[in-house]
């Protein structure tokens, strides 16, 4: 039963989501919303598990003085600080000017932006490795990337301004993005859509059950 009940729930939920998409009649039209609400409730309850796990792991690190235990202290302090300030703010804790709002805007947002900004450097290093002309495909990738990047900046058109309108670097970049790139991406998307259908069917039919704890 430990395996059958989750399989049954999965199958029912899967079928309901398919059926409600094609039947607008009541009660099918409400099922999507109900299931989504239930999922949100389960998700909200599960956050307690997550938070407890985070606190437990961090506390163990501090207690055992594991390498990097200082970071665990930062996690616990931050966790309680934001939770207490959030609760102290009452129902309007997210309003402008509250302590929670201040912490969010002046600590979380800058830290988050910093992480995001690192992406610029990683794009450069990854591009450097990816665009080495090791073989025919990589050379093609290098050339396509070169033309697209050049076509996206004013100097691209400046270098090719002697060419007729429509054949300049920006036009070439647009052509690469609109045709070969879009065609390739759509092919991948068709494969993904079919993969989704196939995987969903396997899950609904109970053929695929490794997400329930292996098999």
């Amino acid at each position, binding site marked *: 039963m430990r395996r059958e009940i989750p399989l049954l729930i999965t199958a029912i939920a899967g079928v309901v989501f*398919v059926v409600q998409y094609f039947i607008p009649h009541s009660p099918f039209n409400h099922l999507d919303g109900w299931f989504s609400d239930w999922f949100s409730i389960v998700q909200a309850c599960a956050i307690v598990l997550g938070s407890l796990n985070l606190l437990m792991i961090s506390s163990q690190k501090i207690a055992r003085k594991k390498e990097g235990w200082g970071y665990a202290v930062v996690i616990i302090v931050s966790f309680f600080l934001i939770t207490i300030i959030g609760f102290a703010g009452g129902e309007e804790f997210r309003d402008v000017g509250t302590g929670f709002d201040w912490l969010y805007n002046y600590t979380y947002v800058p830290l988050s932006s910093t992480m995001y900004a690192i*992406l610029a450097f990683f794009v450069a290093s990854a591009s450097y490795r990816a665009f080495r002309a090791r073989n025919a495909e990589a050379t093609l990738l290098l050339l396509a990337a070169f033309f697209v990047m050049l076509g996206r900046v004013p100097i691209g058109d400046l270098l090719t301004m002697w060419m007729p309108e429509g054949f300049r670097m920006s036009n070439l970049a647009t052509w690469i993005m609109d045709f070969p790139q879009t065609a390739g991406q759509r092919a991948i998307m068709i494969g993904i859509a079919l993969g989704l259908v*196939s995987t969903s069917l396997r*899950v609904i039919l109970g053929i695929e059950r490794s997400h329930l704890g292996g098999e």
Partner: protein
Amino acid sequence: MIVEPQQARVVIPGTVRFLLLAFLAVVVSITSTATASEPNADSTLLETQQVEPVTSLVAQDFKYDNGERIELFWVPSVDDRLVDGLVTGYEVYRTVNEGDPQRLAILPPGANTFRDEAAEIDSVYSYYITTLAEETSAKSVATEPMTSEREWLNRDRGYLFLIAFVIAAAVIFFVETAKRGKKLFIRKIAGLEAIDDAVGRATEMGRPVLFVPGIHDMDDVQTLAALTILGRVSRTIADYDSKIFMPVSRSLVMTAARETIKSSYMAAGRPDAYNDDMVNYVTDEQFGYVASVDGLIVREKPATIFLLGAFFAESLILAETGNSVGAIQIAGTARPAQLPFFIAACDFTLIGEELFAASAYLSDEPKQLGSLKGQDVGKGIAMFFVIAGTVAATISYAWDIGPVNDVLDWLNQVFSSN
């Protein structure tokens, strides 16, 4: 002495005379302004009184719903203009079963549609719109009494249903075929073939394996696909007595992943080696999670990293950090925008459908492999229609042949259904 009348005359000094004249001028000016402003006030009043109502008001039943929606369309008032416009808004009124009008909404200038989402199928509705101006309003002609209807099937999605049905039938057919013992050929997927080698490498180096299941929850099929691969990876890890770290950004994924790893360790006959701490929750916040995983990579220096699931901007940050510590990386996602980053930074990448095929591929179960064959039927259909559509579009553009145009229209209708 008789005083001469001339001497009795009052002599007004120049300054006083000037002041008197100025006073008179002001009085005349005010009077004339007041007199002049009267006709203007009248004309403004006339203009506001003449604000035009909306026209061509149409109410129609919303197609394919449970009968709770009626849509209204109208042409805004001619006085609804950006420059010198008189309209300040619109009020939508509804009468139910010829009762008193109820105001449903106040809409801003420029509005020309409204959807009544509180209709009931047994009632008769009529609607009108009141155009609002500064001091006046104008009521439109009311719509004919109507009822809303509920439908059983969304016919707009008929073609989609047909396509889904054919693909699903093909999947089920091949699953049944495989069950009967027919041998099916599945091409090699390099990324999945490399799993054992990658875990073996970690074991030899005495360093852990890091598994990142993306940042979406269990309601994303990509996360589900990642967990199916986790089952196989953790089984190999248990066999090799290696070590796995799995930081997650969703609590439900944490519990599901624990179950998966636990089962794998039990299947490998090593339940004692399993530890709940192998999977730990970090945070739901995208970049907070990335910072934590990056820190883990830099400190623990895993020999093998699996990045499988739904990834967004963090894909390259994680993959490049992994690359910087010399880890062998196997990545896979169904998000086309993130695939180039994984291809650039990882050793093996499961492109889209390969991620979903992984479970069937790794299990080697005939039933599961059959589903992959069914998927191929879908690909065949897609290829046929892509070629047919391309040929039809080219002929239609070049020669404008009627029947070909019809085919093209039909294809557009079939594949643009939502």
